[in-house]
């Protein structure tokens, strides 16, 4: 099998001579993942690294079962169908919340802020692309705050919004806003002047040109901006949950670190990575369905 993966390939009919990076990398990626997981397992199995620094995979899995309260919910299900009289296993979760509650709280924060950013940043970005006044107004603040790390203005959001949910949402909102606005603005520029001229010479009004030509042409870049934004949102999540959050994946990780519960830190990191990855896959599929012409014109 390894010979098949790594053997040197001669020129093939479908390949273009000298084209960089051609061929599929999926099989190799699968090998990489297996090697990383296998290496992790071997190293912990042999006791080369103390569990405090690197917990064994099975520890993380058993923590997952405990925090996710799998037994508890399985018993509840049995009770529901009449297979058991009462629930035996208690659900403790971590920091008084089961894993799915942590996940739901974080999802609510990230997607709430992301939704707010989407409905505000798309119109503002389009306006910046269409109109020099809007560009003049919004360009300096966006370009100023964009490179500042969210941790730097985290204290400010606490002073302004207190320690409730609104401050957390605001922090993630800021992280999502800039990439969407900037991509929407760049998207406006991707419409060709001929397409606009063609629409006008067929009797279009300014409004029709904006809605039926410019917005559609900008759509691929807007979707790219949204993909970047949601990744920024996840990046900012832990910072947002540092302050007085009761539940959330970020809180879970931070609290676990305080107790040196490395296995839970690992679990939190894996969950964030998995959720972000699943959402990115969905966005890519969505993109293919919504803008099939992307990269083909």
């Amino acid at each position, binding site marked *: 099998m390894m010979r098949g993966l790594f053997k040197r390939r001669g020129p093939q009919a479908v390949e273009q001579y000298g084209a960089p990076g051609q061929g599929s990398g999926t099989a190799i990626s699968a090998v990489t993942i297996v090697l990383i997981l296998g290496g992790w397992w071997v190293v912990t199995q042999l006791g080369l690294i103390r569990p405090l620094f690197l917990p064994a995979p099975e520890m993380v899995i058993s923590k997952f079962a405990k925090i996710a309260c799998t037994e508890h919910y399985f018993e509840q299900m049995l009770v529901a169908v009449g297979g058991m009289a009462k629930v035996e296993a208690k659900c403790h979760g971590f920091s008084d919340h089961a894993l799915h509650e942590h996940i739901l709280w974080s999802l609510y924060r990230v997607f709430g802020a992301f939704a707010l950013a989407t409905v505000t940043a798309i119109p503002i970005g389009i306006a910046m692309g269409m109109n020099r006044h809007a560009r003049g107004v919004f360009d300096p603040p966006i370009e100023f705050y964009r490179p500042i790390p969210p941790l730097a203005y985290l204290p400010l959001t606490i002073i302004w919004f207190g320690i409730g949910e609104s401050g957390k949402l605001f922090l993630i909102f800021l992280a999502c806003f800039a990439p969407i606005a900037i991509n929407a603005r760049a998207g406006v520029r991707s419409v060709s002047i001929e*397409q606009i001229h063609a629409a006008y010479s067929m*009797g279009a009004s300014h409004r029709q040109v904006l809605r039926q030509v410019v917005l559609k042409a900008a759509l691929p870049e807007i979707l790219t901006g949204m993909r970047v934004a949601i990744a920024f949102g996840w990046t900012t999540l832990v910072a947002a949950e540092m302050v007085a959050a009761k539940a959330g994946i970020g809180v879970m990780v931070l609290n676990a670190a305080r107790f040196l519960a490395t296995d839970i830190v690992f679990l939190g990191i894996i969950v964030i990575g998995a959720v972000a990855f699943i959402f990115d896959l969905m966005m890519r599929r969505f993109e293919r369905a919504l803008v099939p012409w992307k990269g083909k014109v």
Partner: protein
Amino acid sequence: MTAIVSLNRVSVEFPAVDGAGVVKALEDVSLDFRDNEFVVALGASGCGKTTLLNVIAGFLQPTSGEILHKDAPIRGPGPDRGVVFQKHALLPWLNVLENTEFGLKLQGVAKEDRLSRARDYLALVGLSDFERYPIYQLSGGMQQRVGLARALTCDPDMLLMDEPLGALDAFTRENMQELVLDAWRKTRKVVFFITHSVEEALFMATRLIVMSPRPGRITHTYDIDFCDRFFETGNARAVKSSPEFIALREEVLSIIYGEETGDGLP
């Protein structure tokens, strides 16, 4: 015959790139477009052909002079003057049929009406079987045919074509010349057609205007009828290889080359 569009001493000036002075893209151009005319503008790069087309389309306001459409001044682009671009400028999120009916949709025409009209013109350019195709799956020649059908569907008085065949390969180009002539004969629009190719210009035009640069102006005008001969015989090669055609081709070429070589002399 009445003029559909007429230009009266139109000049267009741009500020020069280095900021000093102005570039005269068009100087004192007077031109009438009458019913059933196929006017072809020919000239070297920078002679103001595209500027002239943009002025007629309404994308550009002349610095001086007036331009009238049926005796009313042209103030901007409108559906009475359809445009076919060098790069097709179709909308990739719409399929062939949707692109063709797009103009009528903008004008608020009812769905059945605009679909039937769009289908008529797609048939005229021979694309009836490709209604549902996304435009990025079509060849360059087919994309230009959609562009032509789209412009015709709006039923303009005049059709402005800015080097529509410039990006096509030689074989497709000759086929497209015949297709455009055929569409013109059936729809009887006034056509203003820009090209770099002398042979294409002579073959298609009922009136050929030769332009020259710095400042952009019309230097020669020919009334010709090679396209009628093509309609009679249906044989484009025979028309293009006839002695009269070749003689006129050489004459026009010498005008264009004469200007280019004469340009650098003191």
